[in-house]
């Protein structure tokens, strides 16, 4: 069958597509809950900040901490790379655990907007565990350390997003 036939058949099928589709569950309850404390739309400033101030401060602090810790271990323990690298991983993990626990406590009484966020958190935990396992073999691998930090940040973003969703762009 020719290309022309295909284009015509595709155009025909596209014109027949039903654009409307209803979700299986009622989404309104969650929306209403999320907007309960929101001001009227005409009272919301045009430009909402992309991230909260606290998130920015955390991101900057985490970056400096990461660079500082890595530099310190690189300079001070050149002959003990395995121990230094593992200590760095432990320090990053401890710092992240404290940050995560603080957020979970903060949002403890606040309903989450998605049902499977804890499962997503667990999946990210699994990813972090896999990276840590790889880091045992290559403790000073910067790419792996960055990946670990990335997973940690994703967990923080996830917790904040499901409890106080903030979109970066519309």
């Amino acid at each position, binding site marked *: 069958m020719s290309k022309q*036939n295909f284009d015509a058949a595709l155009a025909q099928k596209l014109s027949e*597509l039903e654009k409307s589709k209803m*979700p299986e569950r009622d989404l*309104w309850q969650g929306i209403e809950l999320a*907007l309960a404390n929101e001001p*009227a739309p005409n009272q919301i400033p045009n430009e909402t900040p992309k991230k909260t101030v606290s998130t920015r401060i955390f991101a900057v602090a985490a970056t400096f901490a990461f660079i500082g810790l890595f530099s310190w271990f690189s300079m001070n323990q050149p002959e003990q790379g395995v121990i230094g690298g593992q200590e760095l991983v432990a320090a990053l993990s401890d710092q992240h655990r404290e940050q995560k626990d603080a957020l979970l406590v903060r949002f403890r009484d606040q309903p989450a907007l998605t049902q499977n966020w804890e499962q997503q958190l667990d999946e990210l935990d699994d990813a972090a565990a896999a990276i840590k396992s790889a880091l045992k073999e290559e403790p000073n691998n910067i790419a792996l350390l960055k990946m670990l930090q990335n997973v940690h940040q994703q967990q923080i973003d996830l917790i904040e997003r499901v409890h106080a969703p903030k979109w970066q762009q519309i």
Partner: protein
Amino acid sequence: MIQAVQQGDRQAYQKLYQTHIGQVYGLCFRLTADHALAEDAAQEVFIQLWRKIGNYKGDSKFTTWLHSVTSNITISYLRKQKGWVHRMFNIEDSEAMNESAEASAGSVDLEHYIKRLPERARIVFVLHAIEGYRHEDIASMTKMAVGSSKAQFHRAKGLLKEWMGYE
């Protein structure tokens, strides 16, 4: 209704939700190819819509503006949901992409084929062929190059052509 919503009328907003949820969810589902993701994305669309509807000045049709908001939020949602794992392991196939070859018989409808497309190809195809966006707009929305958008569209059409039995 829109003016009432802009002034904070929540009943009017519920009516607006009821009027448009089908269109919004339909687009979310086509972009995500996943019911649960689409429901979460649609929910976020209506949360963000409340915050953004004050910016709607009536310069374009409300449905056009709403589709633009929906597309951007859903793409952003997908990026956040799947970002790390997918970037690290270069996974882009939808669940349906992994279905057996038998499922690609010609009798299956276009909706199913779209669901089977790899993620980037699917997003570009939905936005270009169904929603009517230009590749320049899609490039901006998806943060890919215009050429990549065109290439993904070509890839989508090639796969559809094959699956629909035209090759």
